[in-house]
């Protein structure tokens, strides 16, 4: 029998939730501050600029809208994976996780191929002006978060899947924590999309 970390499955007597979940919420709070600082920088730069383009005149709104649907769909598949695991349906849970992974890859593919690549081809690099600087920093950091999520989801899909057979509840908890992170990534996009593309 291996010794695990304390309260990684059962609720902690003080917080009322297992430690991993509390840790993820604290991490997400720090992430709010990270993106908050960048949003604040965007407000400062836009308010202080003599001119600032409307996002819809320079960015690809249809692709941004499509990507919003892709990310929302991935959030649903993620939460459905957790719901399936909760009723002990590992095969279905894994299938939903795979869909989440594929939708995340689609999001990145669309972003890189239909948004970043044409922008770089046209010479609209991050150094072009403050608009493109903030656009690439905000969407780039968000994209890195998507990559991070894919790595974690990929881990639990393949090498980490054995945990289900050893301790299903622990595996389900880990998917719940991954889901919290993934929904946060979706949440950031929900604010990024109108701020950058539609205003």
């Amino acid at each position: 029998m291996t010794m695990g970390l304390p309260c990684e499955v059962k609720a902690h007597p003080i917080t009322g939730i297992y430690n991993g979940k509390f840790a993820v919420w604290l991490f997400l709070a720090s992430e709010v501050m990270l993106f908050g600082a960048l949003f604040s920088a965007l407000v400062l730069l836009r308010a202080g600029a003599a001119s600032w383009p409307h996002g819809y005149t320079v960015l690809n709104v249809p692709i941004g809208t499509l990507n919003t649907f892709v990310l929302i769909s991935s959030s649903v598949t993620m939460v459905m994976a957790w719901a399936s695991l909760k009723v002990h349906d590992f095969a279905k849970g894994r299938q939903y996780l795979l869909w989440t992974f594929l939708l995340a890859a689609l999001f990145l593919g669309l972003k890189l191929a239909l948004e970043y690549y044409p922008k770089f081809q046209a010479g609209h690099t991050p150094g072009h002006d403050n608009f493109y600087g903030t656009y690439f920093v905000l969407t780039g950091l968000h994209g890195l978060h998507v990559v991070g999520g894919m790595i974690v989801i990929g881990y639990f899909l393949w090498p980490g899947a054995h945990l289900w057979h050893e301790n299903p509840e622990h595996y389900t908890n880990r998917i719940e924590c991954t889901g919290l992170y993934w929904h946060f990534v979706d949440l950031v996009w929900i604010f990024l999309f109108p701020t950058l593309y539609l205003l």
Partner: protein
Amino acid sequence: MAHDAESIKQHVRVYINVFVALGVLTLVTVGVSYVHLDIYKAIVVAMIVALIKGTLVAGYFMHLFSERRTIHYTLALCVCFFAVLLFVPKFTDDDNVLIHDPAHVAAVAGAHHAADHGSEAGTEGQAGHAQHP
């Protein structure tokens, strides 16, 4: 939070409804952008819709509505700090006025130049602030 098979079924129904609501709200946001409202009205509408969408995701997908108070308190603190961060630009009035306006840039540069010379002559602090054009 107990999760039996029946309660999970109810959860799944809620998730699907939230998904539909998020899709509709996304279309609303994009639709409103084609109306080309005045920028202040557009910001208000876009942020209200984004807030509703964010609440749905956090409340239902992240289960925040049924989460423990420990998490609510932690996030309330986070929201306070986030609000401070968003209002930081308002606290830095000197830099928040047309930072790309050549006249303002020249005025700031002139004030700094005067301040440098002033400090050399022992009058430090008298010309420390840039005057807005």
